[in-house]
């Protein structure tokens, strides 16, 4: 069943896109992540331009993180104060990201930067997660206790604030910086960034696991809504039809994914996720290194006078 995507300007098979949304939703539900880092590359691989893919996936992630955030809110697993501080950085980071996106697009280097960011970020994060997962599995097999690492310098920073629901006492500086970075890369790469944000919040900021996912979802939700708005206003690249199909597939798949995720052990889940992220990174790297079939590209820059 063919459907014409108005903004992406290509016909796609509606069932294929729906299936992709469901598959990514399944994975995202399983690991408790937004899945943007899988969705954006998949859209690029089926022929949608990276710019449209990034802009449209933003709204798709907003939808899935909103449904997640609602259930975490009901369970009181969101720290409003922590979310607000994160958002201060997140919203400015997103604005900066969309601005950079526009500049890169005008220079003709956007596709390259998206691919490069995927290679660097996903290979690093994926590699680390995979390694960490392997070590954790080996530790459990040997029955050793995992070593606890502490980051004293972060806790020595000024401007400390008390976050009641998370029961932590922490400087706002690292929180704003984390929000800024996640918002920035999210807007450029079309990812929510939860797969980086959650480990950073747990290991570096020492946010307890009870509030970490819910609070990170709030950041994802708001930054992705802001990204959708900004991409729509500045670049006119958000494909609402594409986004809607992805959302429907995504939220449905996520429900089944979440159920499947509960049956797998934590370390195995991390190992699997790390492997998945690493694969996407490598796929982008290969694309950059091998000689492309077509060296030339055409882009329309202005309509007829």
């Amino acid at each position, binding site marked *: 069943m063919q459907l014409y995507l108005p903004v992406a300007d290509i016909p796609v098979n509606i069932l294929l896109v729906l299936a992709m949304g469901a598959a990514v939703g399944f994975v995202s539900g399983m690991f408790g992540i937004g899945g943007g880092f899988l969705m954006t590359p998949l859209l690029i691989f089926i022929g949608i331009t990276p710019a449209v893919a990034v802009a449209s996936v933003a709204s798709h992630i907003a939808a899935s993180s909103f*449904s997640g955030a*609602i*259930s975490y809110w009901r369970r009181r697993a969101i720290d409003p104060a922590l979310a607000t501080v994160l958002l201060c950085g997140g919203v400015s980071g997103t604005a900066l990201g969309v601005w950079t996106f526009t500049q890169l697009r005008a220079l003709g280097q956007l596709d390259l930067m998206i691919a490069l960011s995927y290679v660097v970020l996903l290979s690093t994060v994926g590699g680390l997660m995979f390694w960490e997962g392997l070590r954790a599995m080996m530790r459990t097999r040997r029955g050793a206790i995992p070593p606890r690492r502490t980051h004293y310098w972060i806790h020595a920073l000024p401007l400390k604030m008390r976050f009641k629901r998370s029961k932590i006492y922490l400087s706002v500086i690292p929180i704003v910086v984390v929000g800024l970075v996640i918002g920035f890369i999210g807007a450029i790469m079309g990812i929510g960034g939860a797969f980086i944000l959650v480990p950073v919040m747990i290991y570096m900021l020492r946010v307890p696991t009870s509030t970490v996912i819910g609070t990170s979802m709030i950041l994802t939700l708001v930054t992705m809504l802001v990204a959708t708005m900004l*991409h729509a206003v500045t670049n006119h690249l958000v494909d609402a039809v594409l986004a809607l199909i992805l959302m*429907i597939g995504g939220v449905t798949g996520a429900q089944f994914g979440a159920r499947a995720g509960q049956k797998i052990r934590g370390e195995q889940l991390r190992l699997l996720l790390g492997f998945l992220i690493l694969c996407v990174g490598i796929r982008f790297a290969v694309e*950059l290194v091998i000689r492309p079939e077509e060296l030339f*590209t055409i882009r329309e820059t202005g309509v007829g006078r």
Partner: protein
Amino acid sequence: MLRALIAACLLLLLGTAARAERLIVSVSNHRVTVTPNYSGEELVLFGSVEKDSSTPADRTAYDLVVTVIGPRADMVTRRKERTFGIWINTDYRQFLQVPSYLALFANRPFEEITSPEIARRQQIGLNNVLLTQRVSGDYADVVPNDVFRSAFIRLRTQHGLYREDGTAVTFLTPTLFRTGIPLPAEVPIGTYQVEIKLFAGGALVTKTETAFEIVKVGFEQFVATSARQNGFVYGLVTAAMALMTGWLASIVFRKD
């Protein structure tokens, strides 16, 4: 003075003699509507060569060249080169006000119809069509085998947006002709100019023009237009849609 007058009269006479044929053409549809499930269609252009008393009696074999020019737009062609082991866009050329759709059809190969000289002047064949580029501040077309120009034409041809065919025009009778104008799925919307040039014995005899319009209708077009023109409202609606979908999902799949 007198010589000039005679020359002028002769020219005038020749001129009318050269215009002894008249072209009457029509396209099957002057307004093509592209719906969401549009997967390309073909317009038909048909017409006839009308002779009058001043037409030389020995002139029977005609050649016809049809040029279809879609709405014009500025385009950038970029070239990837290997830098530090990866392939990146390095060089680029700007094409100014070039046709977004271009089709050249004839009843036999262009080089058999007329001399290279006339073909160049009348812009017959993709190699002869004027494609203005901005080359270091100057506005000019370049030689046909320029890498950017040929890459541009090759890519447009791959998408079915540029085409040339020396067999597409068929003469049903010595004076009645028809040709199909294929319009691919990704056809740009706007006004299309059709130029029909009649040749006899390698010389341009007469030409005429017609036009048709391509409009997109339906929900998809509405979405595309609002995305371009009302970015803010469009963004708000998309964001609201995301929230609605997320909220609905949390109700539908509520576990407790």
